[in-house]
């Protein structure tokens, strides 16, 4: 059964852990203990692709306390496979270049002790 720790450990090692249902084939990122499509608990691990496209984004100007001082910073929802999306920090992109559809690649950086999922534009503008 996949736990949050499995995802975090994978992230610390630099990859995105997903789960794939052995019964119906549905893919979930981050991995889940139960397939939300068919209810099966028979799931296998899958490394998600690192490249995707921005599906939605924002630039945070009023941050939560843990990220105080980092504002403004961008956060995006990135589609890695059809319908498979994840949230991550956007790096190395200007507000003007950040758009829905932008091609990006995942990376993992350390924020203190914690691994942080982030994305960078694939083609540098």
């Amino acid at each position: 059964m996949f736990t949050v720790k499995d995802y975090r450990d994978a992230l610390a090692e630099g990859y995105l852990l997903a789960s794939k249902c052995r019964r119906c084939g549905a893919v979930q990122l981050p991995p889940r203990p139960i397939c939300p499509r068919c209810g099966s608990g028979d799931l296998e691990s899958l490394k998600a692709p690192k490249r995707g496209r921005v599906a939605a984004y924002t630039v945070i100007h009023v941050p939560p306390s843990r990220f105080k001082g980092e504002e403004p910073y961008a956060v995006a929802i990135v589609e890695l496979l059809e319908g498979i999306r994840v949230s991550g920090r956007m790096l190395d992109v200007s507000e003007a270049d950040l758009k829905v559809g932008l091609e990006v690649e995942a990376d993992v950086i350390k924020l203190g002790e914690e691994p942080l999922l982030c994305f960078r534009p694939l083609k540098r503008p």
Partner: protein
Amino acid sequence: MGLQRGVAIIGAGMTRFHHKIHADKTGRDLFVEAALEAMTSVDNGIELRDIEALFIGNFSSDSFEHQGHVAALMADWLGLTPKAATRIEAACGSSGAALNIGVMAIASGLYDVVMVGGVEKMRTLTTEEVTDVLAMASDEVYEAAVGFTFPGLYAAMATAHFHRYGSTWEQLCAVSIKNHHNGSLNPKAQFQEEVIDIARRLGERRGMTFKDEMEFLRSPLNPVVAYPLRLFDCCPISDGAAVVIMASEEVARKFTDTPIYVRGIGQASDTMALHDREDLTTIRATRLAAQQAYRMAGIGPEDIDVADVHDCFTIAEVVATEDLGFFPKGEGGKAAEEGRTSLEGDKPINPDGGLKAKGHPVGATGAAMACEIFKQLRGEAGKRQVRDAEVGLIHNVGASGATVVVQIYGR
């Protein structure tokens, strides 16, 4: 499935929602104030002993006031003990969920009269601390940890909506301007001032003049909170409480000649994380909760005369008016811009000013919506009265849409 027996609202009351005037009050003071107003509003009178149970929506008194177990606390302070008192938590949809529980409690036959309310005392914390607490209603591990805030999630929905439908930030401004206008007519609203009057007042202080609302809204006096959402796209941080009293159809008319009947209820959940939703431009739980409520009421969106929808951010009102079926998908912003959602429009939305102007003490919001529609359908809404309102709807959302409650009322 319908209700096993009819349920009606027989009384409603609320504190003014505000960010300052309740500074010396605690959550319990606010709740008691709202509850007493609700009791007093019952036309033929009601006694505390008539109330058989209490259901309270509250998001986070634990974080805001260092006070848990608030349902028992409120029962105690109201003199309602030993009646059953239960707290319901569904983030900003807490008292909406409590309303549904109240309806079910009466429809089941267990109780004849219950009190349902909500309370949140938020201004004990700084804006930054409130931002932290509200972010707890998103997925801590997969959203908040990468930097999403609560405004940030709705901002992301806005970018997806703009991209797919060509809707614009200017359309969102129309929502804000309209809700501030409605708020200016509501004595219980936090902000009772038109955007243009705020522009004049703030401009004078800084030696700036604005030719219209849009020039002000584009100015640095309306700073970006989470792009593309600016300050006037966001509901404020508020203190307040709201309470309704519900009764079975059998006893309702003992208390009032004009009970407001619950015609339909619905509730749905969705993935906690926004990124896992099928469609980032839709709140699916709204569509599903609305379908349930419309089916139970035997009506459709075209039959709704007035609605209070969850406009925690301007984009949320646009998305809600689409997902509730009032306007085709992608046309909610245009409808707002054309004035269709104003008090005089063909689909008046948030006559009380909405969360934007009325305020949003998160756990109290669903109950406050029920208070407003109760008043609207009884013709008691004063300057903001929607003409000939006979059927009304409330739509209360938890966080980014992982919980949605819809209730439909009729005379």
